[in-house]
């Protein structure tokens, strides 16, 4: 599945790098042979024919290999961040090219960077943005991204200009406006290196989102600011009056908000589209990339902020995409997105390194360079501390001093700054090369030096870490409850605060947005609590299976026919009780799929028996649910539906259920039922555990839940009787009639038999997960003898399938 993502990736990458090379080397010459053929050549060497794409692919390969080598050395990457190493790798590569050609052949051109490398990085960031966290801290992020950036740009430009006036850097032909332009391009904070460090050490959420969100929006803001100043520079000093300045400020906001708006529109468009891509599942992930890219280009075309556009596009559509699309497509999108972004990032850093080896751009001016470095660092600190000080007066939970230090120190400059610097017009700005050179030095300094020292600093300052917690169901529920409580208290105290806004937005979102943008089937499962519940069930089932495997007992593999009943049941919408009964055999023919896998299991089992079951666990783990996937190839390009995960899950579920029920019956043999529960019929009791589980399971499948027979559910919750634990269900099974050897009955009484107090029977929750501890216990103590006894009646209806009987 992921292959297609990679293929797409390669395609795009190669296309984009074509432009790199072609811009440097000129049009690729397509040689036409055949004008003066003397004979038919068997093979011919046509380098020029493939030169451009070949070089592109080759460079990508080289960068990736570089990354491969770097990532292989964990002890190095744990000290020096990957981005710094990639830049160094670029130095080496550039040096080699220089040594060979004596000219700089490859460099990162702005076109390539802004059109082909940057979009996917930003799209990825937007798409994976933790929305709730982002919007909770939106105020702070915006203040830092907008005001902070303007502050950085202005202060740097003005200070440098002041220093030049003071004569600190000799004779330079740079005016005030050009300094401001330079300041604006230097204000772009690059998130990549910081985020990498943050992810390693798991800093707390608030700090993470502040830095991440800021650097993301800040890229957009910088570009806007750069364009405004660029326009001023082109206009020339004397022509600028108050009106022009106001126009500049207005255009700043129009460009920024317009870009965001374009992004939102495209995001909604993607969401709407994914509602109806059910039949073209294979290319459905492509929509996100294509439309995301189009939103970038559209914004660029309208001279709005392209970066902000693609950020908001990603943020807006993520929720609906994830709900609307098939699970596989969602995975593909995630992986492809990461592959694109990571690949681009690698290439960007390598080329940043390569660009350094170029004699043309190295114009040294000690004063200019050192002062820039100093001011960049100092003003970042001042800006962050000042803005945070203001923000803290309004924040419920103030940002701590340590967080502020890290935020300031995390202001690394990256490729955006370099890209903008290269875009400068040499005709208008005489000292372009000096600026490019300074930008590069600042980038190297911040990425390499600050990047390396970042981690020790985070450790040393003891930055508050994120609590890594496994989300439990209770936690989720309490969280939900807690949010409602906060909203209520705000309502009662008559205050309009965060919680109030959030609840109103949620209300609107649930009632309108979701209704329009989500598939009806997807809306059902969007509740997170339900999600966790479902996952818990799944985990439970898996645990059960592994537990069985670990104990080396293959019982649950052996009674394969269990699948048949259950398969049928889960597929048929109206849950027929009679069919659910394990002793029946009619109607099982409808779904032949399981039998295919049964065959596979049969083979595996043989192998296991021969291998003396030592590595039974491993083998089962490897092959049990993957058999069909591995042994059957499909060549169709538009269908990719063999053995989807869902089905594996279904199988696990069905097996689990079947075995649990078996375990109940066998474990309870010979035990007198407590009187309170006698009134339930035996059939009902058998049904109950399965009911609950398959309910959640069906519910997750969406539509099937609606046709579900509910009257039956109600019967299980009979008033007065409380709830009964199926594990303790007294057994009135015909199994009783089987003659149980007394010793067998005895042993079970001792080990796993459970006599419940009256209260426990009433109160113990009857849920799938309560079987977690109980069911495996029973399996382990049960003797194989009793198991085989059980299997006897089942084998009969297994023969419905010819495959099994052969």
């Amino acid at each position, binding site marked *: 599945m992921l292959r297609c993502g990679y293929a797409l990736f390669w395609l795009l990458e190669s296309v984009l790098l074509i432009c790199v090379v072609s811009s440097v080397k000129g049009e690729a010459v397509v040689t036409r042979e055949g004008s003066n053929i003397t004979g038919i050549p068997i093979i011919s060497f046509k380098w020029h024919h493939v030169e451009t794409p070949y070089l592109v692919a080759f460079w990508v390969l080289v960068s990736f290999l570089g990354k491969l080598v770097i990532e292989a050395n964990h002890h190095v990457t744990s000290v020096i961040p990957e981005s710094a190493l990639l830049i160094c790798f670029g130095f080496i590569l550039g040096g080699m090219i220089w040594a060979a050609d004596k000219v700089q052949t490859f460099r990162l051109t702005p076109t390539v960077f802004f059109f082909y490398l940057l979009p996917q990085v930003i799209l990825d960031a937007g798409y994976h943005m933790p929305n709730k966290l982002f919007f909770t801290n939106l105020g702070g992020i915006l*203040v830092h991204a907008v005001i902070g950036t303007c502050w950085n740009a202005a202060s740097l430009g003005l200070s440098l200009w002041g220093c030049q006036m003071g004569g600190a850097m000799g004779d330079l032909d740079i005016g005030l406006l050009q300094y401001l332009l330079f300041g604006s391009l230097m204000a772009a904070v690059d998130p990549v290196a910081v985020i990498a460090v943050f992810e390693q050490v798991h800093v707390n959420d608030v700090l993470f989102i502040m830095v991440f969100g800021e650097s993301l929006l800040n890229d957009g803001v910088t570009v806007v600011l750069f364009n405004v100043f660029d326009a001023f520079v082109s206009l020339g000093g004397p022509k600028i009056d108050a009106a022009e300045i106001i126009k500049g400020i207005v255009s700043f906001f129009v460009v920024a908000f317009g870009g965001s708006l374009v992004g939102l529109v495209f995001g909604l468009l993607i969401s709407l589209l994914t509602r109806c891509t059910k039949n073209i599942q294979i290319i459905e992930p492509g929509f996100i990339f294509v439309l995301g890219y189009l939103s970038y280009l559209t914004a660029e075309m309208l001279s709005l902020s392209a970066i902000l556009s693609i950020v908001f596009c990603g943020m807006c559509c993520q929720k609906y995409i994830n709900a609307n699309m098939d699970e596989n497509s969602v995975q593909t999108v995630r992986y492809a997105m990461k592959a694109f972004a990571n690949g681009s990032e690698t290439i960007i850093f390598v080329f940043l390194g390569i660009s350094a080896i170029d004699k043309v751009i190295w114009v040294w001016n000690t004063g200019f360079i050192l002062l820039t470095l100093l001011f960049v660092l100092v003003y970042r600190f001042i800006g962050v501390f000042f803005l945070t000080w203001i923000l803290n007066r309004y924040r419920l939970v103030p940002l701590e001093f340590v967080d502020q230090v890290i935020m300031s120190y995390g202001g690394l400059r990256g490729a955006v700054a370099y890209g903008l610097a290269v875009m400068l017009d040499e005709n208008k700005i005489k000292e372009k090369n000096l600026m490019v050179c300074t930008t590069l030095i600042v980038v190297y300094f911040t990425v390499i030096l600050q990047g390396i020292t970042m981690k020790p600093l985070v450790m040393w300052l003891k930055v508050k870490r994120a609590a890594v917690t496994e989300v439990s169901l*209770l936690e989720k*529920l*309490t969280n939900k409850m807690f949010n409602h409580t906060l909203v*209520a208290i705000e309502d009662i105290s008559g205050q309009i605060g965060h919680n109030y806004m959030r609840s109103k937005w949620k209300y609107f979102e649930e009632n309108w947005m979701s209704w329009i943008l989500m598939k009806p089937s997807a809306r059902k499962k969007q*509740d997170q609590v339900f999600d966790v519940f479902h996952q818990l069930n799944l985990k439970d089932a898996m645990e059960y299976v592994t537990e069985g495997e670990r104990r080396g007992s293959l019982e649950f593999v052996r009674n394969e026919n269990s699948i048949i009943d259950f398969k049928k049941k889960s597929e048929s919408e109206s849950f027929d009780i009679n069919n659910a009964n394990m002793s029946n055999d009619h109607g099982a023919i409808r779904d032949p799929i399981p039998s295919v896998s049964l065959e596979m299991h049969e083979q595996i089992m043989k192998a296991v028996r021969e291998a003396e079951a030592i590595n039974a666990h491993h083998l089962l783990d490897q092959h049990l649910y993957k058999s069909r996937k591995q042994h059957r190839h499909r060549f169709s390009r538009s269908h990719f539906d063999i053995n989807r995960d869902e089905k594996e899950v279904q199988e696990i579920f069905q097996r689990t259920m079947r075995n649990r029920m078996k375990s109940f019956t066998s474990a309870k043999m010979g035990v007198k039922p407590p009187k309170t529960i006698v009134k339930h019929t035996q059939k009902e009791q058998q049904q109950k555990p399965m009911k609950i589980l398959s309910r959640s399971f069906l*519910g997750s499948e969406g539509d099937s839940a609606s046709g579900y027979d509910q009257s039956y559910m109600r019967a299980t919750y009979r008033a007065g009787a409380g709830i009964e634990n199926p594990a303790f269900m007294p057994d009135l099974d015909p199994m009783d009639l089987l003659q149980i050897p007394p010793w067998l009955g005895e042993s079970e009484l001792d080990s796993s038999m459970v006599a*419940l107090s009256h209260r426990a029977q009433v*109160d113990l929750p009857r849920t799938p997960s309560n079987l977690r501890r109980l069911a495996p216990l029973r399996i382990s103590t049960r003797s194989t003898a009793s198991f085989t006894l059980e299997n006897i009646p089942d084998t009969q209806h297994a023969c419905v399938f010819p495959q099994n009987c052969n």
Partner: protein
Amino acid sequence: MYNYKHYCKNLHKYIHIVDVCFFTVSQEQIKNLYQRFQQLSGNHEKISRDDLERIPALNNNPIRKQIITAFFDKRNQHQNDVGSLDEIGFEQFLMVMSHFRPVNSTATEEEKVTVRKQKLRFLFNMHDTDNDGIITLDEYRTVVEELLSQSGAIETEVARSIADAAMLEVASTNVPHMAPDDFYEGITFEHFEQILKGIEMESRMSIRFLDMNTATMRCGKLSS
């Protein structure tokens, strides 16, 4: 204002109450709350259930009942008293509100722990309706059913089994080696605390009682 004299007379008392429970608020904030109180009660000295139930904004809240009950619960008055009140005065109102005060950034570790306990206790009390110190399954189910009643996709039965699953989860984490015939009575406060230790209660369960202008509610977002 009708009760303004009364308010001024009692301001000292209120500030005292507030100080007792570390509710560091300014007079301004108390005044705001007082105004709101008056508005809710219709200028009476006491507020009743009906008054709270009339708040339109609460209508969409699935756990409205629990919240309102919490306001009239004596356990939330810091006085080791049990039972429920029919009406509450401003003092009691303040007491309940004090559970939602933000923690001072200068607070010591010890204070933070106390505050956290208080907040958790408030939540716990919302679950534990019969005040036996244990959230039993029935109690928990009631809450969860209410909580999920608004999301249309989940029916009562599912809500119940979700509650059951959550309960069992607590049981299995807290009593890892439960013998088969053991019986888990319910979530005690200690277990509750233990399970929710991942949630940053002290900072999240707080509301700024600032900027409250009940007459003209400003619709601005606090920046943070």
